[in-house]
């Protein structure tokens, strides 16, 4: 992994600027992604973390232009100098699969069940690299070997149902890296797999990045997954980025109460990973026709009146320009501690969430 300092000087391969995606529904517009910006240097690995429903998949799919036709997307996505938001379908097809590839959450359903896996790999090789059948076949076998599939020459004739979940995800990875893309979007690539397989797959992805200088966006609901494998982490909630920092820094210090909750929810060996947070009450709701205000306020122990009617802007920490967060009463600051103490004394936050009353307001903070 390259250090972040080095990366700043390198060329930015992907720029996402103020990207918003919403879905018109009969009940109002669902703002799934709300003004997200993201910059990725080549070879860099960024983790996007957030509970299920926080807009991670919609963000990745908006970058890939894979959202349903009903979705409305605003903002700019630039890849290697090309504005992806305005590419024609034909230009786009030369980028998807060749320069930007994607791996999906569920390996059981993301392979075509009635097509041999070899064919599913060779089809992009033939399309993008113009390989002939024999060369494509040879390359597919190499790729399967590279992702750790035993007996690759025999396996290319297998159908997906003949492989286990872990093996299928390896096939998906082989499919994604077939044309040596410069950017890989991995949307919860291991969520559907068991813990030991998870680690193998994540290590494989990290190795591929460092070997080929491929940039990667690794999406997960589990901060533990990104800990040792990413250069930078972006925490999302309610379609917005609530905190982003170089990974090593985030694990040392964090400002947003939601990040704190995610950190305390990192699964240990004896505690399996869950897609919903146990540490904080409530669950993310669909963000329908949102009014200004912090999206996290209904679940935040610190929420004050200001939080419910004003959007907290994403701003850098006073002492670290690379560490940004969007919170009026951050963890580890005096005004943050004061807000938490005040809410504990009355037993509710400004958004009406009930919480245990603590007479002096100084209980062990849940989120520190």
């Amino acid at each position: 992994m390259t250090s972040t300092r080095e990366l700043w000087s390198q060329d930015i391969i992907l720029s996402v600027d103020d990207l918003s995606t919403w879905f018109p529904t009969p009940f109002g517009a669902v703002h799934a992604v709300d003004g997200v910006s993201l910059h990725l240097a080549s070879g860099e690995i960024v983790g996007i973390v957030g509970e299920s429903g926080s807009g991670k998949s919609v963000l990745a799919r908006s970058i890939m232009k894979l959202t349903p036709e009903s979705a409305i997307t605003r903002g700019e996505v630039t890849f290697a100098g090309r504005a992806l938001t305005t590419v024609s379908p034909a230009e786009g097809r030369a980028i998807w699969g060749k320069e930007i590839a994607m791996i999906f959450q569920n390996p059981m359903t993301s392979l075509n069940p009635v097509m041999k896996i070899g064919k599913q790999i060779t089809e992009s090789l033939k399309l993008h690299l113009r390989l002939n059948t024999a060369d494509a076949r040879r390359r597919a076998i190499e790729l399967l070997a590279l992702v750790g599939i035993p007996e690759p020459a025999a396996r290319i004739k297998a159908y997906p149902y003949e492989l286990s979940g872990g093996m299928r995800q390896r096939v998906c990875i082989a499919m994604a890296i077939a044309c040596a893309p410069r950017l890989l979007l991995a949307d919860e690539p291991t969520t559907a797999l068991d813990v030991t397989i998870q680690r193998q797959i994540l290590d494989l992805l990290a190795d591929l990045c460092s070997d080929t200088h491929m940039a990667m966006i690794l999406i997960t609901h589990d901060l533990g997954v990104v800990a040792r494998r990413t250069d930078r982490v972006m925490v999302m909630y309610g379609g917005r980025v609530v905190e982003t920092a170089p990974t090593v820094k985030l694990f040392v210090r964090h400002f947003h109460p939601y990040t704190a909750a995610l950190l305390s929810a990192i699964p240990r060996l004896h505690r399996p990973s869950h897609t919903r947070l146990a540490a904080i009450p409530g669950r993310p709701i669909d963000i329908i026709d949102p009014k200004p205000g912090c999206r996290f306020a209904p679940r935040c122990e610190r929420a004050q009146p200001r939080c419910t009617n004003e959007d907290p802007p994403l701003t850098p920490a006073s002492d670290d320009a690379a560490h940004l967060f969007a919170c009026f009463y951050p963890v580890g600051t005096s005004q943050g501690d004061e807000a938490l103490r005040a809410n504990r004394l009355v037993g509710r936050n400004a958004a009406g969430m009930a919480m245990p009353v603590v007479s002096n307001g100084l209980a062990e903070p849940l989120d520190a």
Partner: protein
Amino acid sequence: MGRYVARKLIHMVVVLLLVSFATSLMLDLTPGDPAYAILGDQATPAAVKSLHQELGLDRPFYVRYGDWLSNLARGDLGTSYEYKQSVSSLISQALPVTAELIVLTLLLALAIAVPLGVYSARRVGGIVDRGTTFVTSIFVSAPPFISVPFLVFLFVLTWHIFPATGWVKFGDSPMDNLQHIVLPVIALSLWPVAAFTAALRSDTVATLQEDFILSARAKGLSTRSILFRHALRPSSFSLMTLAGLSLGTLIGSAVIVEYLFALPGIGSLIISAINVHDIPLVQGVVMFTAVVYVVMNTAVDILYRYLDPRLRMQKA
């Protein structure tokens, strides 16, 4: 697989026995006497009686049915009263006409329904989808006895493109043969075009929601290869079932179409046989049709295993 085939075979035999028994019984119960059809209305009671003896019609129903079965087991379908030829040779003369009609109908229907169904599914409620639904809804509501006069009026009487009736063997003159079969094929394919399109459309709509379609799009494949290489095959189960089962319906409609266009096929054969109470011929044609039908059903079943490799693993 061996046990599967054996079970299928027993099943087929039972179905065929039931069909043949029901046909024979119905023929026995229908009023009318083949002797008059053969000898004419003025036949004397003595002549009728001796003909009955000659044909074995004086014996009870179950004896005649048993006889017919044992002959069938030896591959003998009997001799037509009307044509004085073996039933099997009559069938083999008529079969190529009907087979050509039905095979061409199925091919035409699939050639039209596959792109229509797939492209309708691509945008539900879009212009292709709504246009297709509109046109095919006209097709389903036009059975041959309505569509044939309409087609004849347009293509024969108004535009003089095709001949109205008659038949030329393919071997004698391929061009003339095709000229004579075009209108019957069009008339016969209206219903399957509509039914196949609807079946394929709804399955494809479901398939296009699948994750693997998203993976295919993420690979940068063109819409066409996504639709036809990735979505079509997993979406064609209903279509295959329907195409296989529609054979029965098609043979039924072919009877009317052949009759209206005076094509010398199985349909015309059975209509003339029924008209003159030609019992062996009716029995033979019905039996033959039932065999074709049952064999096709089994073929569809086997085709499934090709379409969905997962089924090959399952114990049948």
